[in-house]
């Protein structure tokens, strides 16, 4: 299994520290969820890994070798990116051919089948695409790339429910067939929960946590009840976040207690809720 290692990567835009000494290990055959709030540094991290923007210090190694200026290694990595890479007047089928020429493992037949599934007209010019189809054509290129490491940056941006479900199904198919490593950044965490086996939370330029999805979901629990009961119960526990509604309170705690006292109810937390609390909740008006 190939490994992509990111070691001590730092990035500044002017005085703004976007990535602060980030280290990560990505292993083939896994699907990582790269989660973070807007401005957390997700896209910057992906762009740095793909050598699309310069970094300050650190290393990026694929199977132990630096990927810097190494076209052989870079062709084993594919990224769908936000920024428009191709001139607006290019037709999609031209872009498909260019990608096929650049990536020897690109599966043109599969890409054409996906275009049909998603209802994408390959005769269209890339500049004329709607927001949704602008995402879709890049998702198709990524899924058909068959690269060893595939980065999907906001793959469901602007696309409808039916198309999202098609994407999730094809992602599951590709994962079980190809053994590629997928790194997916998304805000629609709930829908991706069953597809990502490992969660990376990037917060304010640092890795807040990196753990298996299942470990995370069983490591925390939420308790709800009368505020005073919740407070006394959680006094000696690690509280990650809370929310109140009149006399009631919900607290997310780390660790699963042996028993829950009368009057309190406990609940498993899903990934989205966990992310929400870990990254500061939603502050209310004062």
């Amino acid at each position, binding site marked *: 299994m190939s490994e992509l290692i990111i070691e001590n990567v730092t990035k500044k835009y002017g005085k703004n520290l976007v990535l602060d000494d980030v280290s990560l290990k990505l292993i083939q*055959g896994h699907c990582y969820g790269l989660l973070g709030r807007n401005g957390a540094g997700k896209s910057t991290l992906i762009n740095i890994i793909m050598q699309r923007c310069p970094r300050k210090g650190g290393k990026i190694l694929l199977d132990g070798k630096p990927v810097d200026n190494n076209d052989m290694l870079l062709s084993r990595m594919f990224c769908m990116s936000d920024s428009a890479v191709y001139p607006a007047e290019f037709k999609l089928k031209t872009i498909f051919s260019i990608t096929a020429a650049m990536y020897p493992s690109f599966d043109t037949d599969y890409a054409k089948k996906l275009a049909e599934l998603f209802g994408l007209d390959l005769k269209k010019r890339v500049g004329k695409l709607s927001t949704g189809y602008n995402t879709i054509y890049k998702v198709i290129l990524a899924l058909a790339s068959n690269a060893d490491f595939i980065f999907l940056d906001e793959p469901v941006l602007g696309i409808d429910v039916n198309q999202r479900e098609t994407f999730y199904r094809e992602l*599951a*198919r590709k994962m*079980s067939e190809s053994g590629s490593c997928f790194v997916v950044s998304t805000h629609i965490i709930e829908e991706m929960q*069953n*597809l990502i086996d490992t969660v990376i939370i990037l917060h304010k330029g640092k890795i807040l946590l990196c753990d298996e999805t299942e470990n995370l*979901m069983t490591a925390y629990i939420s308790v709800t009840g009368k505020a005073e009961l919740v407070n006394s119960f959680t006094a000696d526990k690690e509280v990650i976040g809370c929310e109140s509604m009149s006399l009631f309170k919900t607290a997310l705690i780390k660790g699963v207690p042996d028993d829950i006292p009368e009057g309190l109810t406990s609940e*498993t937390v899903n990934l989205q809720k966990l992310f929400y609390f870990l990254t500061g909740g939603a502050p209310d008006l004062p």
Partner: protein
Amino acid sequence: MAQNNDQLAYIKLKEWLEDEILAGSFPENTQIPSVAELSVSFKLNHITVLKSVNLLVDAEILFKKRGVGMFVAEGAVSKIRTERQGEFYSKYIVSMVSEAKKLGISADELLKMTERGYENE
């Protein structure tokens, strides 16, 4: 210990497979869908699917034939029944009685309702 894994995808898939074996959708000695098919149909990570399947293989409910696929083992139905019967009290009776108490339903009334439930089957 508070129950904290019922929401996990591998537990849900394991229960689905057991339910379908109990219902006879996958009879003993017949093949079940492959890991890839299950991943695609349920839109699940293949590692999750492997985990569910391996738990059932360890429990001798499924067995693998190399290069062919996965099959339902002989005696799988009775194994699942025994296991589920063991969980029945903690999983259903405890919560039913607590809800009944909350609503002021007596043990006697609850028994009568249970009998009625059986009759209506």
